[in-house]
């Protein structure tokens, strides 16, 4: 029977369209348990490839006859080996092109909505790792917020839309993934904006993002207004775009809130986090659509694949916004936190420009889920 290649983009469509898929993950057990491809209607079998070198007879009964089967490994090689054996044994199977490495890097651009004039707002969903980047497009100009390392994806998209990238902004110094901000700014001549309190140790020059700073995109002037909301980091800044969207960075997510410990200062920053969530955001219009920098579970995706919800809904539904007791809040965000993201210290140093690992090393540092939230 036939063996086919399936791209990360095709798998993403299956998640968004709520399709079924059977995943045979042939990485070792630790890697699988730490991080895998998530889908509402996906089912899984994890058998390390090294247990299948002598043949796949032993697992044939565990594989479905009526579902698409996708074989997944770290980089592709082992999944091709196993998929070939399954295909020789009479099954129609696919393997994931580029493996989990490609899965981690895939970005799906999805339109969030129209802005003033002919403006548009796009969300770039990094489906495998849960990172969200944004592009504001208006009258030949673009601003990118929280771009991930895959800078060319944003540049190609801008070219397709016939816009010049003028501004690149980071809501904070990221600890779970490597920012593409600096590279994008260097390649396009755009200004690179960073919250100065997060940038005290950076080794390159940048534009400081101060509270209430306004950045315009395009001639019809779409406003990006900065709002100082510390807590995940001391510099964490939110953006209000066109009076309609609230980009919350890693302070507020759809179903959780940011963790204050990734720069080693949970106890100092918990008060800031509370103030940002319970005072600053409360003063804003409930009609603003919250667009965070991450999602953690597929249930946070809307039907069209975007991640976003009205602030008013989050005030009602998000547990992290409904802890009235200050002491209980402090306990929640400083105790029993999930494990820290892979290589988060090295990632922070890379984002400060202190170290410059090669691409292969950068990929390895980013392996795994983002883990920026507390629930």
């Amino acid at each position, binding site marked *: 029977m036939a063996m086919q290649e399936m791209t990360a983009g095709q798998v993403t469509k299956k998640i968004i369209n709520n399709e079924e898929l059977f995943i045979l993950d042939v990485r*070792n*057990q*630790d*890697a699988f348990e730490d991080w895998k491809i998530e889908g509402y209607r996906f089912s899984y079998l994890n058998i*390390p*490839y*090294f*247990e299948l*070198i002598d043949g796949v007879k032993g697992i044939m009964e565990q594989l479905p006859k009526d579902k698409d089967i996708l074989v997944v*490994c*770290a*980089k592709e*090689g*082992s999944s091709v*080996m196993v998929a070939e054996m399954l295909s020789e044994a009479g099954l129609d199977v696919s393997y994931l092109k580029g493996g989990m490495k490609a899965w981690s890097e895939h970005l799906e651009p999805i339109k969030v909505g129209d802005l003033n004039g002919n403006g548009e707002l796009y969300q770039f969903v990094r489906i495998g790792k849960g990172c969200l980047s944004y592009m504001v497009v208006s009258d030949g100009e673009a601003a990118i917020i929280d771009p991930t390392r895959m800078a060319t994806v944003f540049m190609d998209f801008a070219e397709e839309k016939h816009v010049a990238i003028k501004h690149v902004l980071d809501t904070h110094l990221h600890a779970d993934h490597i920012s593409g901000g600096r590279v994008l700014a260097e390649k396009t001549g755009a200004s690179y904006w960073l919250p100065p309190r997060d940038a005290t140790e950076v080794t390159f020059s940048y534009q400081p993002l101060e509270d209430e700073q306004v950045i315009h995109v395009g001639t019809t002037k779409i406003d990006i207004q900065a709002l100082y909301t510390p807590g995940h980091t001391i510099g964490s800044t939110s953006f209000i775009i066109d009076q309609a969207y609230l980009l919350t960075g890693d302070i507020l997510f759809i179903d959780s809130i940011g963790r204050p410990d990734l720069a080693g200062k949970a106890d100092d920053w918990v008060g800031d986090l509370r103030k940002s969530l319970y005072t600053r955001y409360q003063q804003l219009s409930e009609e603003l659509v919250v667009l965070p920098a991450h999602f953690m579970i597929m249930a946070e995706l809307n039907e069209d694949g975007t991640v976003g919800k009205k602030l008013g809904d989050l005030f009602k539904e998000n547990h992290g916004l409904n802890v009235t007791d200050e002491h209980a809040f402090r306990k929640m965000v400083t105790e029993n936190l999930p494990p820290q993201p892979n290589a988060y210290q090295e990632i922070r140093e890379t984002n400060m420009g202190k170290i410059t690992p090669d691409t*292969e090393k950068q990929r*390895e540092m980013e392996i795994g889920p983002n883990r920026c939230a507390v629930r």
Partner: protein
Amino acid sequence: MEATKVLDAKGLACPMPIVRTKKAIAELEPGEVLEIHTTDQGSKSDLTAWAKSGGHEILEDVEEDGVIKFWIKKGE
């Protein structure tokens, strides 16, 4: 460290380092040691997991100039 046999798997990508290792260790007697050289970073966790599941023991692993070396003692 004394090895009974040395396997050069440098430049090979996954799954080949483990495929070759499996073959090489099959030719050894229990208690004998196989030395493996690989440049595939992923080999580290995979060889460890493979050795564990097969009852073999990793005696030592070092990394020098991008080459990872393992010494694996064949299990009973």
